[in-house]
Structures are given as C-alpha cells and as structure tokens.
C-alpha cells in the first residue's frame, strides 16, 4: 500500500483539474462529490498508507515520481518522503480537510462560484500535501508557493468586492517576503552542500558544521524568515487578520489548520540545523513568545468574531514556535495537531453562526444563540474550552500544558518563556470565553435566518470529539505518563532533556496553569455576563490602548508607512520613466542645434563667398603651421 503514497496528493490534484476544466458545466451535486470525494479518498488512502507504514516499522519511505531537473550538480526530483512527522501532517491535512470539504458543500450551497471554490480548495490540499511530503527543498518550495497561491485565490474568492482582492494580495505579498528569505536560505544550503535533498542535508550538516557556526545560524534565521512569513508570526503577521475576508471554511482549513502551520513543519523538519544554531533556536522561541502575547492582547479587543479567532491562531502558533524554541519538537507537533482540531471546529462554528445570522460578523450584534443553535453552541463551547485549555477535560490542556512545562523544565527553556506562556494562557482563556459569552449568551439582537443542516453539524461534532479525546494520547508524567505521541516521533525528533531536580514541580505548574485558565473563564463571566458595565468602563478608560490593540498594535499602519506608501509614491512619481526624459531631451537638443545651423544658410551670395574665403585662409594657415 505504501507505494501508492504518490496517489495521496494526486487525488486532490485530479479533483481540482476536473473542476477547473469542466466545473462550470457540472451540476452542484457532481461538483460537490468530486471536490469532497477526492479529499475523502486521499484521507482514506492516508489511513491505509499510515497503517501500512506503522506495521512495516520501516523508519521512512521514499518514492520518486520523476526527475524534475538535473543541472550541473543541482539535481531535484518530484519525490515524496514519508516519515512519522509527515505522516502526522498528512493525516491532519486530509482528515480535517475532508471534514471541512463536507462542511463547505452546505456552506457554499447558494454561491455561484461553487465549482471554482472546490477547485481551489482541492488545489490547496494538493499543494499542502506536496509541501509536507516533499523530499527536497525545491519541491517543498513548490508546495510552499502553491499553498500561498491557493490562499490568495481563496481569500479573494468573492472577488466582486475590491477589499477582498486587496486582502488576498496583501496575504500573498507578505508571505512572498518570507518566501524570498527562505529562497536565499536554499541558495546558501546549495552552495555549501551541493544538494537540496532534505535528508542529505540533515545527515551532512552535523559533519560540516560544529554547533554555533555562523553559516548555520544565518541559514537557520533565513528559514525562520520563511516560516515566519507563512505562519504569520511577529514581523509578518499582519496578513492573517485581513485574510478573514475569505469564506469561513477557507479560514478554517487554511488559516487555522494547515497552511499557517507550514512554518512549524519547516522548522521541525530542519531541526538539526536549529540544533546546530542555538542562537537561531533561541530567537524562534523569542518570536513565539512575543507573538503569542501580542496576538493575545489584540484578540481581547476584537469585535469581529472571525478576527478574534485569527488573532488566537497567531498566538497558538506562537506557542508552537515557543515549543520549538525550547527544543520541545514533539510537543510542538502535538500542539499543532490538537490546535488544528479545535481551531477548525471554532472557525466552522463561527461560519455556521455567521451564515445563520445572514452574514453578520460583529459579535456584539449577536447573542442569545444558546438555545436557538444548540448543537453549534455545544460544539463551539467544547472547542473554546479546548482552546482555553480547561484542565483535565480538554485536549488543549494536555498539549499546551506540555509546552508550558517544557518551557520551564527543558534545559533550553528559561523563566521568561514560561512567564510569557503562562500570561498567554491566561489571556487566551479570557478572550475565548469573552467570545463565547458575547455570541451565545445575553439577549438575541439579530434573528436566526435558518438553522444549518446536518452536513454542517456532523463535522462540528466529529471535531469536538477529537478536541476532547485527542489529548489523551499524550498524558504528562503526573497523569499516567502515557506518551504514545512523543514515542511515535522520538526516533525522528530529538527528545527534550529536562534540567536536573525539576521533575517534582511538574504538578505544581499544571495546577497553576489550570487555575489560571479557570480564573480567566470566571473573569470573562464577570465582565460580560454578570456586569457588562465594568467592561465598558475599562474600555472607555483605556480607550487608546484598546484602539491600539484593536488595530493589531497597528503594525499594519507601520508597514504601510514604511514600505507600501514610499514604494507606491516612487512608482507613481516615476510613471513615465525618468530615463525616457533623457532621450527626449537628447532629441530636443538636436532640434535646437538644427535651428542654429539653419540660420547660416541665409541665401545671401556674399555671405557664402565670405565663407569660402575664410575656409581658404583656414586651410592655408593649417597647412602652413601644422607640419606633418
């Protein structure tokens, strides 16, 4: 079964191809069946391949489709490489992707671009699978850009409004900035290792570099740049909140579950380089910590339902970066998986809510949906709980707790990381339940237009089950120490060594984290249910800070001012090509001289004779004085 690995990305590609070519002529059902079916098949195949892979116990499996290009030393091929890490990723992508496809069959029912939507979605799943299964970095780059393209297409899906187009363009360009950094990293890797095959690089790296060599640090930073661009971390995170312009299933699939975690995959995949460049790894942690705080605060002040979730995604990925920063690779991947479940659930729930209230995005105009949309309410609540990491009962707790613990206990961890993570957890709890209380509790401000069908509720239910029971496959020491997940990854990713004499304090930390989460929920309850007056007072008193956070620490305005406006200014200033002026000036000069010389032909005979005489004199004097 293993050798049919290449079929996994091919199914969605074929689906996309069919839908692009003949999509407009197909009926809704057929298009839906092709769209969702292809990803479903991919999911089934992943199950089979995964099962076969686990049984065969072979560490990794490589399948080469064809030789892409082989030029003077740079030989890259379309080859897929399956190992535990990529198995987890393709499992999450195909499984969550399939659920989202089913959801969007109902969600996009009346939309006229139905086939086009599924074509893009399939293309996205295909390029994400290529990215994750790529054997060499160039193929990874292909998947990387393909994913960027599909996110551009899907964000700008409702292309009639210009602002969607603008948001899509912004997303593509900012991720492209990250991609160029990554590309330069690739060039450097090639110039040193003469190959871009990931496994060769990872094996040769320890021999060529000793820990901390400057080249390794530079390459690590460049790859980090690429990851930051794609995963919307600190310097390049402004595009994700605007990317909410796309339909909700898109936000669920791309901007929650899969694409934004591509950066996590890249860094985890190239972990040996980061092991060899401790400075870069530290910076990964720092970026993670700072981003999770920044995004958390901004999420507190959002009024648009989907933007809250967008900022929460940024902060959750911040956690993953933090985990990678402290070398807790398997916990980062574990958090990725769990996050994919509950964040997709939250986005789908939000989509269902928005659809139900005929495209109302502002949370403060929703309310009282608790009893009107019970299924969505309960699944949304479970997702929120998992996001807020309520102790023991939710999967989020286990994944986030592990990161908190290793941020403190890991020998690369430090107290600042831990404190940042802790406050982040607290803020997450507040804004998550603030969102839940505002949207679902209180009196109903807009009427529910129609209750979503079962194609929407089934994925929600499945995801909520996963968000609860998904965490039990990785229990910490204090609670039964059942570490199926990290054992599965241990042979691939280096495990974290704890600092000595710290095991005992694990349950204390878990207690603190759990307590904080609960107090966060309580505070949200106090502010938004019991006495909304307090929240209004706070908002009015700290209005400037509120606006500042609302605009996402107006990093957006900063970039606009620093990059966009000067670029556009120079470009419009130079619209008709200043160099062209040089040539037109040249033409005018020749015309001017022509004018001057024309006057010498005055038509007067004597003037000409005078010319002849002067000429004669000149010639004679020259011939006299210039002796050859």
């Amino acid at each position, binding site marked *: 079964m293993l050798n049919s690995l290449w079929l996994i990305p091919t199914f969605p590609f074929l689906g996309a191809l069919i839908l*692009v070519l003949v999509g*407009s002529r197909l009926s809704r059902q057929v298009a839906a069946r092709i769209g969702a079916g292809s990803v479903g098949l991919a999911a089934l195949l992943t199950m089979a391949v995964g099962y076969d892979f686990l049984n065969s116990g072979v560490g990794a499996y490589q399948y080469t489709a*064809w*030789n*892409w*290009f*082989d*030029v*003077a*030393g*740079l030989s890259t091929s*379309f080859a897929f490489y399956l190992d535990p890490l990529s198995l987890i990723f393709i499992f999450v992508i195909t499984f969550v992707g399939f659920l989202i496809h089913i959801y969007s069959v109902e969600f996009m029912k009346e939309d006229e671009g139905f086939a086009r939507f599924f074509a893009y979605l399939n293309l996205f799943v295909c390029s994400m699978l290529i990215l994750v299964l790529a054997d060499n970095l*160039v193929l990874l*780059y*292909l998947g*990387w*850009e*393909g994913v960027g*393209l599909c996110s*551009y297409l899907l964000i*700008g899906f409702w*292309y*009639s*409004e*210009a602002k969607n*187009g*603008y948001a*899509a*363009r912004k997303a*593509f*360009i900012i991720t*492209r*900035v990250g*991609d*160029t950094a990554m*590309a*330069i990293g*690739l*060039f*450097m890797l*090639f*110039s040193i290792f*003469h190959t871009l095959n990931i496994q060769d690089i990872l094996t040769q790296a320890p021999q060529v570099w000793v820990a901390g060599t400057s080249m390794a640090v530079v390459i690590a930073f460049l790859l980090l740049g690429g990851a930051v661009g794609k995963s919307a971390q600190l310097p390049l995170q402004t595009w994700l909140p605007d990317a909410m312009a796309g339909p909700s299933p898109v936000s669920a699939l791309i901007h929650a579950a899969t694409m934004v975690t591509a950066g996590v995959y890249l860094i985890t995949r190239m972990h040996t380089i980061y092991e060899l460049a401790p400075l870069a790894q530290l910076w990964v942690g720092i970026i993670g910590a700072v981003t999770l705080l920044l995004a958390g605060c901004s999420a507190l002040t959002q009024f648009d339902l989907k933007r809250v979730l967008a900022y929460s995604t940024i902060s959750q990925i911040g956690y993953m970066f933090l985990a990678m920063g402290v070398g807790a690779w398997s916990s980062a991947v574990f958090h990725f998986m769990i996050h994919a479940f509950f964040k997709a659930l939250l986005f789908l729930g939000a989509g269902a809510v928005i659809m139900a209230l005929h495209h109302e995005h502002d949370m403060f105009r929703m309310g009282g949906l608790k009893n009107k949309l019970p299924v969505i309410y309960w699944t949304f609540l479970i997702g929120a709980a998992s996001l807020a990491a309520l102790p023991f009962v939710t999967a989020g707790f286990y994944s986030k707790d592990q990161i908190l613990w290793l941020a403190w206990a890991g020998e690369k961890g430090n107290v600042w990381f831990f404190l940042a993570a802790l406050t982040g957890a607290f803020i997450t709890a507040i804004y998550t339940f603030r969102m839940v209380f505002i949207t679902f509790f209180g009196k109903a401000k807009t009427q529910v237009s129609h209750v979503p069908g079962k194609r929407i509720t089934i994925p929600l239910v499945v995801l909520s089950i996963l968000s609860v029971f998904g965490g039990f496959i990785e229990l910490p020491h204090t609670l039964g120490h059942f570490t199926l997940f990290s054992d599965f990854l241990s042979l691939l990713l280096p495990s974290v060594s704890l600092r000595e004499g710290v095991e005992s304090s694990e349950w204390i930390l878990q207690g603190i984290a759990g307590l904080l989460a609960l107090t966060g929920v309580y505070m949200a309850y106090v502010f938004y249910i019991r006495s909304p007056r307090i929240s209004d007072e706070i908002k009015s008193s700290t209005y400037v800070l509120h606006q500042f956070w609302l605009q996402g620490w107006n990093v957006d305005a900063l970039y606009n001012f620093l990059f966009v406006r000067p*670029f*556009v200014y*120079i*470009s*419009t200033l*130079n*619209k008709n*090509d200043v*160099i*062209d002026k040089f*040539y037109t000036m040249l033409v005018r000069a020749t015309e001017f001289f022509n004018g001057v010389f024309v006057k010498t032909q005055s038509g007067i005979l004597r003037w000409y004779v005078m010319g002849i005489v002067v000429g004669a004199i000149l010639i004679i004097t020259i011939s006299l004085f210039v002796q050859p």
Partner: protein
Amino acid sequence: MLPLLIIILLTGGIAAGIIAYWNQAACRWLSLITVVVDFAIILFIWIEEGLSMTLTDSWLRDSHIPWIPSFGISFHLALDGLSLLMLVLTFFLGILAVLISWKEIQYRVGFFHFNLLWVLAGITGVFLTMDLFLFYFFWEVMLIPMYFLIGIWGHENRQYAAYKFFIFTQASGLLMLLAILGLYFIHGEQTGIYSFDYFALLNTTLSPDTARWLMLGFLAAFIVKLPVVPLHTWLPDAHTEAPTAGSLLLAGLLLKTGAYGLIRFVIPLFPSAAQSIAPWAMLLGVVGILYGAIQAYSQTDFKRLVAYTSVSHMGFIMLGVFSFNELATQGVVMQMITHGISTGALFILAGILYERIHTRDITQMGGLWSKVPFMGVAAMVFVMASLGLPGLGNFVAEFLILVGSWQANQPLTILATAGLVVATAYSLRIMQKVYLGSSMQGYILTDLSLREKLILVPMCIVIIWLGLFPQQVINTARSTVANTMHAGNHATIHQKQDQEEVPNTSAFNTERREP
C-alpha cells in the same frame, strides 16, 4: 537543410504578399502553412536528434556555402542545442503570431504577412548564423520589417514608437558592426587569413583593452536589444504601439536575440574581458530587475505594464549570463524560453481584450472574470508564471539563475530575490485591476473564440510542461552551455593567475567539471 528553413520563410512571405491581392484568407492560410512547415522540420530535428545529444558533439547540423570568398564571408549556418531551442520557440510563437492576427489585421493584409514572415526569417538567421558578417546582415533583416509592423499597423502614436525602436537598435547595431570589423582585421593581421567565420575568430588572442573595447561594441548591441535599464526606454513604447502579433514577436523573440548574442558571441569571443566587467553587468541586471518592477507597478496601460515586466525579467538574464557558471546559464536558456511564452501570452491576452473593449487602460477594466471566465483562468496561469510560481516554467528558470548567481555574487542575488516580491506585487495588480474587483463599465464581452482558445491552451500546456518537465530542454542546451562555460572558465583560470580577486567562486565551477 538549414538554409531551407530561411528560404521557406522568405518565399512564403513574398507569396503571401502577392496572394493577398486576390484573397486575404488564402494569404493568411499560406503564411500559417509556411510557419507550420518550418515548425514541423525543427520539431523533427529536435525529437530525432536533439534529445539524444552527448556532451562532445554539440553541433547537430552545419551548412557552409561561400558567399563572398574574397572577404572571407560565407553563408555559414550551424545548429546546436541552444539555437535548436530558440528556433522551436521562434516557430511556435510565429504560428501564434499568425493566428492572433487573423481578425485583428484587416488593413493591407498581404504586406503585413510579408513583414511578419521576413521578421521570422531574420530571427531564424540570427539564431543559426556562424558568420559574423551574416549575423549583422540578419540583425538588420530582422529590424526593418519589425519597424514596418510597428509603424503601419500599430496604435495611436506608432510612428514615434517605431522610429524610436529603429534608432535605438540601429545605432547599437552599428557599434557592433565596428566591433565585428575590428575583430576581423585584428584576426586577419595575426593569422593572415581574413575571415568572418565564428570558429576562426574564436581564438584570436587580443590584448586586454582591445578585447574590452571590442566586447563593449558587441555588448552595446545586445544590451539595447535585451533591454538593460539605461537603454530600455524603446521597449515600452514599441510594445504599447505594436499590433498584438508585433509585440508578441518583439517580446517573445527579439529580446531573446540579445540574450542569445550574449551567450553565443560575447562570452566565448572575449572571455577575460567579459569576466572583468562581470560585476558591473550583474549590477546592471539587478538594477534592471528592480527598476523594471517598480516601473511596472504604476502603469495603467496593460501592454506598457507587461513591457516593463519583461524589462524586469530580462534583468534576470543579464544577472545569469555574467555569473559564469553552468547553473546560471542553463537558467538563462530556460528563462529565454519561458519568458517568451509567458509574456507572449500576456500580450495576446492584452490584444484579445483590446479587440473586445478597444482600450488598454486597466483602470477602465475590472470584474471581467464573471464575464470571461476562460480568459480569466488563462490570464491567471500566465500572471502566476510571470511572478515565478513554482510548477510553471519561469520558476525553474529564475531559481536556476539565482542559485547560479549566488555562487558568483551574494549581495546582488539577495537584491534580485527581493525583486521577486515586487514581481508579485505588479503581477497580482494585473489580476486585480483587470479580472477581479467590480466592473464600472458594462462591457458586453464574449468569451474566447475557438481560435483564441487554440492559441492560449497550447501555451498553457507548454508553460506547465516546462515547469514540471524541464529536463528535455536542459539536456538539449547542456552541450552549448558547457562549451560556453568552458570558454568562460578558460578565462577565469587566466584571471586567477593574474589576480586572486575571485577566490572561491571560480575555483568552484572549474573543479566541479561536468563528468
């Protein structure tokens, strides 16, 4: 065999010109058939021999007819990997040019096709010739019909554009003629035999500064043709005013003759001189990339915007050629082909749009996707190709160039890669302004006709094929590139002995010789 290619085109042109008096459709069909015949011949050669080329014998075909023996001028045409690829591109775009001007050109059709086929003949000559005098001859033959194409069938101020195009290329061509003659006489003095033959002139020993001056002569012509920034201002005007077929040929082929000239003449004939100005040339290339990109961003005229994008893409070629390693040169060959197709397609789309809404101003357009989805998809493919999306041809080319030029010069490559971001900005702006967004004007548009589909679909297939299976093209060009690099490196070894200023890079590509 080789002169046959050119003769078919020339006679075809004349025949098409004459037939048009009786029946315009026949004229169009005739010119289509001539180019298709040529395309078939070159494809036959490629499939039969091109794919199985070994490294040593790079010359597939050679025909040598003495023309003016007294001056040593001979009608010497030779076909190797690089010129084979270029000819395939020439005839492919030639067919598309004839097809695209089926409805567009109603005015003096005969003379139009006459010019079209003679430009193609000139270009074929340029790509085949191995005699420098003949090279200059075809360089001019290529130029004059193009001037007519722009000057007669162009848009509003076509005279200005045609005139500017002609002066730019002609003036630089004359500089090249001087260099050719200089080389001819120096070679004559040294070896006694006066000949314009490329192989004979190849190993004339020149003192460094004469070599530099002669190279600058050649370089002048190719830099103007391959627009490098300071001398590029003719391109936007020529492209905006040319008819669709004209700008297709201009963008697709005429720019490539400049790049071809660099690879065929400048590097092998003056290796050490080229080596010495390499940093400056690469800098010019990068300036071209960024300047072209910034320019392209603010244009409102569709064709002018695409013209500036090709200035930016040609900057990559300049960067690649002067990094003197096989990777970059293979990238340059790929870039020549993929750029020809992707920019040609964008021009075709501009032409098709102009035929329907009679304006090229993108601010008037918008929201056309709902009206013309098929054209939207095609435009999406080619816009993505122009911004270098992996999986399409341009990415492979740009990636190879950048990897190659990384070994030659790091800071410039970083700047060039930054150019990719700006490339994304202007490419997406095309999509946004033309196809997406809301449309103010109520244009009634019919989607692509069968003929237009027949043009765009093959181009889409080719650009995707080049993106996913570029190996055939790379194999065909491998031997030429290896020889050019051998000549180029031959100089770097000298260079290394003279001064040690290029420490690791030259050592790099000399050690790692192709097995």
